[in-house]
């Protein structure tokens, strides 16, 4: 995750700060893929292109979705219709607005939270980072 200008200023002033698990100056972005409807509004709102809207959709995401969700219902319907299990992502025609795979690149994310505010399905959570409870696996060098 690249540092924002404010992040650099803090880093200058507080050499000890490790910024915990997130950028510590923006939000920590948590994506809930099972709720995502693939509309791409997050990609449109994202200033840096950390979220992009793909041309394909992984059908397995639908099939694995929880049964009570909107995606789960669609997945169940597909399971009844399908003859053989799908292999890999399928291409989505351009006129279909939703059900695209959203590619999220945390390396480019500034943590501004614009995507979470734009998401119509509450699939993105922008939480103030939990400093201290650092999940060290995510700390960027």
């Amino acid at each position: 995750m690249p540092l924002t200008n404010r992040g650099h200023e803090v880093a200058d002033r507080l050499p000890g700060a490790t910024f915990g698990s997130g950028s510590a100056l923006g939000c920590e972005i948590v994506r809930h893929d099972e709720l995502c409807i693939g509309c791409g509004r997050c990609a449109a709102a994202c200033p840096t292109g950390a979220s992009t809207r793909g041309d394909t959709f992984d059908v397995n995401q639908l099939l694995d979705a929880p049964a009570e969700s909107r995606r789960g219902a669609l997945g169940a319907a597909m399971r009844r219709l399908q003859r053989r299990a799908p292999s890999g992502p399928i291409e989505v025609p351009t006129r279909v607005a939703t059900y695209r795979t959203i590619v999220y690149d945390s390396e480019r994310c500034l943590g501004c939270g614009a995507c979470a505010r734009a998401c119509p399905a509450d699939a993105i959570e922008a939480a103030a980072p939990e400093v201290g409870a650092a999940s060290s696996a995510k700390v960027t060098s």
Partner: protein
Amino acid sequence: MSAAADRPLVLLCECAGTMDNIDFDALEARLSPAADVVRGTHWCSRQGQAGLLEIMESDARRPVFAGCSRDFSDRRFHKLHARGLRLETADIREGCSWVHGGDTATVTDKAARIVEASTAWPGAPADTLARENKVDTVLVIGGGVSGTQAAAELTQMGHQVELIERRPFLGGRAARIGTVFPTNDCGQCLPTTDAQAGTRKCFHRNVAIDDPNLHVWRRTTVESVAGGPGDFEITLKRLPNIVTSDCINCSSCETVCSETASDGSQKAIFAEFYDGRVVRTVDLDTCTFCGECVKECPVDAIDFTQSPERTTVRAGAVLTAVGCEPAPAPLLSHLGYGKDNVVTQTELAEMMDDWTAQASIGRQPADEVVMIQCAGSRDRRRLPYCSRICCMIALKHSIRLKQLFPSMKVTICYLELRTAGVGYENWYLAARRAGVEFLRGTPPHVQFDESGRPVLEVEDMTASLKRTLRPDLVVLSHGMVPAQETGRMADVLGVELDEDGFIEILDRKNRATETTREGVFVCGSAAGPKALVECNTEASAVAAEIHNFLSSAGRRMTPASTVRAEACVGCDVCSTMCPFNAITLVERPADVPRPAEVKDDGKLAVIDPEACHACGICAANCPEMAIDHNLSDEALYGRLRLLAGGVEKPVVGFFCKECAGAAISLSGLRHDAYPANVRLIELPCLGRVSALHIVEAARLGAAGVFLAGCAEGRCQFRTGDASAAEQAKLAGELLAEAGLSVPLELWNLCAVDRESVGRRIRLFCAQAEGDEAAAAMLLSEGDLMDTKAGNGTGAEADPEAAGRFVGTRPQGGCRGCQ
């Protein structure tokens, strides 16, 4: 005087010798190398002001006045302000000398630092005027009683008014009700102008609506709004009325019309309410365009060839008077609404005309009527709020029923009767005298026996017993909800809604007719259900408010914030945070520089300088620090560096110059002492403070940092205290992570806290410095204060409460603002 233009000019005031703990000779000597210092013993005296005027008129520089606080000096030198001359203040009196002890060296050093901070980084004077030229037209949305009255009054004040009404007739809900409280006559009147005798006239007789400057647009809705306060461009959509103004209301068309209007009570071509111009209209939803009426009309007043038209009007201000409407049926279904013998008060009002006719021939349509108050209202699952008018409507109807049918049994099931208003309680007494039974307790639901008769099981709370009522008719005193289009209207106008869906007003205490957007006003029931008397009062109030807005020179403010495009990445943090909707994200123009990480179709934030109030919330929250506020980060860091120096362990306080500033300077006027290591930084709004400023203070060795803003939720810039709280939390986390433990507190102050803020600062210092004995002493002092102040309320021994000095605050909070 050696007047080099780049040297600051300092006017040093000894305040008539009251600042005896400052060594003015030393202070002058210290400031002199970098500034031209003019010393005076009493600048605000008659001779002093004359001298000051002479200096300021001969010298182009804006002097730094080192003496009393900004609030105090603004008042003392108001004559200078009237001439357009501005002083920069350095508060060495209430903020330094008067609140510190006799250690002359320390106090003088602090005073010198305060003056140096002001000379090195002077604040921006509030000289910018927003919107000097405004369009002198007002768009009034809603032709009900509130809207029409406000429109008529605005026309009389000389403004051009465009009054638009969604329906074909003016008058709104009030004109369709038989009688209204508190006068028990019809609700169809407006106050008259000088052109007519009498105090009021019906809509169809009132010449106020005929003013040539008042345009009435019927069947018209707002489609879109562009522009900004002072010059809105509004697109209106007008549906044709079909019946032209040639109509003589002979009703011939009605006799041949074979369709009924959508509400079922009239023909599809109908006359509802004569408001002076239009008498008749066509319900376009049910009309089959058969053309029979056209053939029948003797004056050729029916024209089906008209089509909807769109018009754009320009207006300086917009008034929303869209009103409210009865709660929809689903909110009343638990009380049996939908069955024949369950009606609402609105329906009863309509039935009453018919019942009056029956009474005149000696018939009584029902023997027993039960009214249920708060039907669907004050209920978390339905309407959580009190609609305020239902109690009076029930009283009015019950009295009317008893007058018409003395032997009818009328019962009102209520929990509380809210009759707050001039003369309202008399209605309750009159209802009692008339023999209306008041039963304390409302039924949770209404059941029906096999014959379809309602059965109500009510717990009578006064008598503590369960009662079963079997009335002929149940009347539900329903609440009111926002009018149908309120949500869409708010979207189009860019104003906010409150938690109940009504138009949010700017300030519940002082600015009841303004919305969250400047230039957009609200009156009447659009901001919450109101009785006619309140609607009329608000209509007059809002007319004066709009007149004031349109004719004033403009809002005086410090320069608006700006976005540096080369740093802005186009995230939506600022536009989300801005309390005045002044920031929009636009497509980034090709010639504007962009930061490396921004994608090709990235956006750019743009601040509307006319809507910006220069609070600094955006600048404090921008992750890229791309927004420049007139109080720049460099100035803030510089002042911090200067003020936090020269003392071992400074305690840094950021405070807003609004409510917290008032509390602190008033506390200073009381000579309420606190340690000299407290260094205060004034901000336009506490929202200007960012986590970085707090981190910087800690890095400079601050023993503690406190942030003082307006009373909770009462920020003058709406959300500054909330933003500061977020930033403080973030700063706390950053500091903890870096291993620095700096006490950090956020205080919500208002002018009443002048009594306690000094002690609060002392306590904070004692705790920040780890002086536990002093802290304990201050706390016990607070306890003593609490028992003294709280003698009326008794047990306030909560130790936490004592620490916060809540007991010293007078009941009801601050009433100082205007």
